[in-house]
């Protein structure tokens, strides 16, 4: 139990935090390098875990009298998401380092947040999950506070209030899960032995769901999302982290479904309805956005609708697809945010109505377009596999909702292409600033995610192999369907 | 006893009230101020008293309470020797703290 591999997840979680503390004392001159190095190291640790085929459950009694344990495990879905997180944080740091004037605090915040996020994915104990869940919030808030735009206070309050509203209800139901079920501790392994039954389960599930619906986000609780993205720093770096922070789908998949099987079956139709509606509604709103960030925000929301649909459907294919999509939409949405950042750096605005960028910055345009294709699930790119298998699976559960959701893909194509076309093609307005094309690191920043998207778009087996057993394990608890 | 005593007073007052002459005049009913017209002062007109009197009053309250505590101890004293002695000593010492304090604070200086 003391072999190095068991410590790897812990290392992967807390390495970034150490890094962010380290950054506070490192001199300005090579702060960026340190940050990048730490992030890379974290990613390395993640890859090491992957090579080892996931880690064992590592458990240590954190607060014995309260039955709160520090139990972490990275394997299957959680590992995939952790890897993506590590990667995107690394990329975000790369971009932040060259784009943001005084990046010191931002870098440490990114790292701090990475800790929270990886922690969320690794946690196998409800309280631990909650703790990390809230930890990730603080850096996110600080990023917005320190680098945000004028309207940020409103956005901050909205964001925090929504999150806390959800998570505190979740806290109450976490307490409920343990005491009504009579479990000795909050560790998933114990909780699964002592499930709550009856109507209490439904109530607890709802409490849990509120938090997750905020973080998905799901339709009525999504209002914080666009403001959050719009008010954040133009470079789009915080948005990347924000995107990674959308852990609702994962939370429901890992915790809610196993703990509230009956309730999740019972509420399935309603929730799937909500999800489908979210997807369509978000796409529809996105269509009318003229600000790239809001557009991306709603696009992301729409994808989350898909993810939710998949997760709620409790169908193996769909769930796998949902996790797949969840993982990779982080890649392309994040990358898109960064590309928007680059665009803004060049033309000084986030308007989707400036024309003719393509003529001067071909590479930027090209890469952005490719990423958009990934986003709207063009076959051959990772997005497609996710969305397709979600629809496939969900169809077996409820065809109609699936059909509604299906429409979304078309809507997505619509909003993405119009916005892209307005910005990159069309005539260049007279007297507009000349736009530089991509320079050194920017290439990497956009190319790496794209590369991965392509790779897993055509050769999805490794990812699927990673996820399938985990999903099977979860769903088998429901007695399949 | 109390009744009788108060009775006496009341009777006396009534008696004089009945028997005494009533020839009031403004000057007669004016507050005595060595012949000058009285200025403000007296009931309800918010005359200020020197704060020293408040101090005396408070000190009195405190020390009187202390006496009140001492009486039962004194009565029961011989039954509780020697415990009571140490009690008394502690008590008086604590009292002395306060006494020394007001002494040093010059509260007891009517100058």
């Amino acid at each position: 139990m003391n072999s190095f591999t068991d410590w790897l997840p812990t290392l992967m979680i807390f390495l970034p935090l150490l890094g962010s503390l380290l950054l506070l004392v490192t001199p300005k001159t090579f702060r960026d390098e340190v940050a990048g190095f730490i992030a890379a190291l974290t990613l390395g640790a993640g890859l090491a875990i992957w090579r080892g085929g996931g880690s064992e459950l590592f458990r240590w009694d954190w607060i014995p009298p309260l039955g709160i344990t520090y139990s972490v495990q990275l394997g299957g879905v959680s590992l995939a998401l952790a890897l993506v997180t590590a990667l995107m944080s690394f990329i975000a740091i790369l971009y932040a380092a060259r784009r943001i004037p005084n990046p010191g605090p931002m870098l440490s915040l990114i790292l701090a947040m990475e800790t929270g996020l990886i922690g969320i994915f690794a946690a196998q104990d409800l309280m631990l999950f909650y703790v990390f869940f809230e930890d990730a919030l603080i850096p996110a808030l600080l990023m917005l506070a320190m680098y945000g735009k004028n309207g940020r206070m409103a956005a901050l309050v909205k964001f925090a209030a929504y999150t806390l509203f959800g998570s505190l209800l979740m806290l109450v139901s976490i307490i409920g899960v343990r005491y009504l079920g009579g479990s000795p501790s909050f560790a998933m392994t114990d909780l699964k032995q002592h499930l709550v039954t009856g109507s209490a389960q439904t109530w607890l599930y709802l409490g849990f769901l509120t938090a997750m619906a905020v973080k998905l986000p799901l339709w009525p609780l999504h209002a914080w999302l666009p403001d959050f993205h719009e008010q954040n720093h133009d470079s789009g770096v915080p948005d990347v982290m924000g995107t990674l922070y959308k852990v609702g789908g994962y939370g429901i998949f890992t915790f809610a479904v196993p703990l509230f099987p009956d309730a999740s079956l019972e509420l399935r139709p309603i929730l799937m309805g909500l999800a489908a509606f979210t997807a369509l509604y978000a796409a529809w709103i996105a269509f009318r956005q003229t600000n790239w960030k809001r557009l991306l925000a709603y696009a992301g929301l729409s994808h989350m609708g898909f993810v939710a649909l998949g997760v709620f459907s409790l169908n193996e294919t769909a769930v796998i697809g949902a996790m797949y999509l969840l993982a990779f939409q982080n890649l392309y949405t994040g990358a898109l945010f960064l590309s928007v950042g680059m665009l803004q750096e060049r033309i000084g605005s986030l308007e989707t109505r400036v024309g003719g960028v393509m003529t001067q910055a071909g590479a930027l345009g090209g890469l952005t377009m490719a990423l958009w294709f990934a986003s709207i699930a063009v076959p051959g790119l990772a997005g497609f596999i996710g969305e397709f298998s979600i629809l496939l699976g969900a169809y077996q559960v409820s065809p109609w909702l699936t059909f509604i959701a299906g429409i979304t893909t078309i809507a997505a194509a619509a909003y993405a292409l119009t916005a892209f076309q307005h910005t990159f093609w069309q005539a260049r307005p007279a007297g507009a600033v000349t736009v530089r094309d991509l320079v050194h690191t920017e290439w990497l920043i956009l190319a790496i995610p794209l590369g991965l998207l392509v790779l897993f778009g055509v050769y999805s087996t490794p990812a699927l192999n990673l996820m399938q057993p985990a999903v099977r394990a979860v769903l088998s608890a429901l007695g399949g369907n | 006893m109390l009744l009788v005593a108060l009775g006496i007073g009341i009777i006396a007052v009534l008696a004089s009230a009945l028997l005494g002459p009533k020839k009031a005049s403004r000057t007669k009913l004016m507050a005595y101020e060595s012949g000058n017209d009285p200025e403000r002062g007296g009931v309800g007109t918010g005359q200020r008293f020197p704060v020293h009197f408040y101090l005396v009053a408070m000190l009195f309250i405190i020390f009187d309470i202390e006496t009140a505590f001492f009486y039962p101890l004194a009565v029961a004293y011989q039954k509780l020797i020697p415990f009571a002695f140490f009690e008394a000593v502690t008590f008086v010492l604590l009292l002395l703290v306060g006494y020394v304090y007001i002494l040093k604070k010059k509260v007891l200086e009517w100058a």
Partner: protein
Amino acid sequence: MLQVPEASLTPLLPILLVLAGAISSTLLGFWLSRRTLTFINIGAVVASALSVGWLWNRDLSSFGGGLRADHAALLLGFVILAGTLMTLLVTLDTAWRARVAFPEFDAMLMYAVTGCLLIAFSGDLIVMLIGLEIMSLSSYVLATLQGSRRAEESGLKYFLLGAAGSAVLIYGLAFVYGATGSLNYAVIAEKTSTLNPENTGILVGGALLMLCGFGFKVALAPFHQWTPDVYGGAPTSVSLFLSTVVKVAAFAGMLRVFSGALDNAPGWHSVLAVLIAATLIVGNLAALRQTNFKRMLAYSAVAHTGFLGMALLGTPAAGGAALGYYLLVYTLMTAAALAIVAALQRSEEGFSVTDMRGLYYRHPGYAVALAVCLASLAGLPPFAGFFGKYLVFQAAFQNGYAWVSVLAALTSVAALVYYLRPGMLMFMPDRTPAREYGLGQRAPTTLAVALGVAGVTVLGLLPNLWYAFVAHPDIWAMLAGR
């Protein structure tokens, strides 16, 4: 009938040490500088804390169970002393600016602490009452001592309401005595289970009256009106003291009386639940509207009364443990936050929330510390405030007051919002000139703040350091003594 009571002073050691400090500052004040006195008092407090450690696990008692240095008493006493220490450290810096730098200030402070400790050590309603009154009376003086118009008014308000509160409490005490025929917690506790109807009626009446009385002291709504005025009007260091140490002591009293003596008395639980619900709502919503940071903290103190009170709804075992943990955390974080206010404020009004914009770029250390305190107050992990909240939620939840827990969860969203605003403003860069006292960053205050922040963080990451002490259930099962 005249038997000599056994009066061993050993269990009183912590109290006596503090009292010695008080007396010394009463008398030596004429010869020594006030600063020296403060150092003496700090010494006394530390010594007393050590003696608390020394008394641990001895479970002594004195005066026929009237004074008991059991685990609960020692734990609560330690919390009180911690708060006192931080207060003293802060006054070292700010007393001059607050124009309260004379020996009487320290004397009164220490007397108040003596009272607080008496409450924590009480095994008997009379001792509790004496402690409570010593504490309250000294606090009235402390609140007034500054002599400024605001301070005097706050003092008067505090005094009048506090006195009324004590009167109600004493009346309740009389009824409890009437119902059980004793003032000793243990006897009351055993009598309460076996009572004939009309005595039960009297007991319930008494319990409720005492509840109201304590409500005044700990500022449960609707008895909280004095709190913002007093905390806002008194010198900040005093507000610090009142909102931490005094409140802790009052809660210690409630713990002793309600979870201890009156635990199986009927009726008061539900009333307390209602009061707490009111407090949570009033405190949090009122705090939302505050523009002055100090007043906001005052209201947040009210709100926290609600959270702390939830612990009393739990079973003595769970609730006591929760309260024991939360009180320390609450003291640390509130004291640290107010210490920073005291250090940085220009006038005793404290500063308005908007003045805090960009604090991070002027006083990075204090800003980060304050942010930590606020996060902890808001109950965000990994800071200790979160576990405090969690524990009280759990305590109330387990004892069948789930609705209070849910309400508390909802209100703490409001709480988050008003903690968030200043917390975030501090990190927003701004160009305007500083609006706080530039030279505020002094060693003792910094030390106090460091204590608080370190405590909050460490207790958040490893709650067991303190929780392991308080978690022992039979500590709280014997609140009333045996």
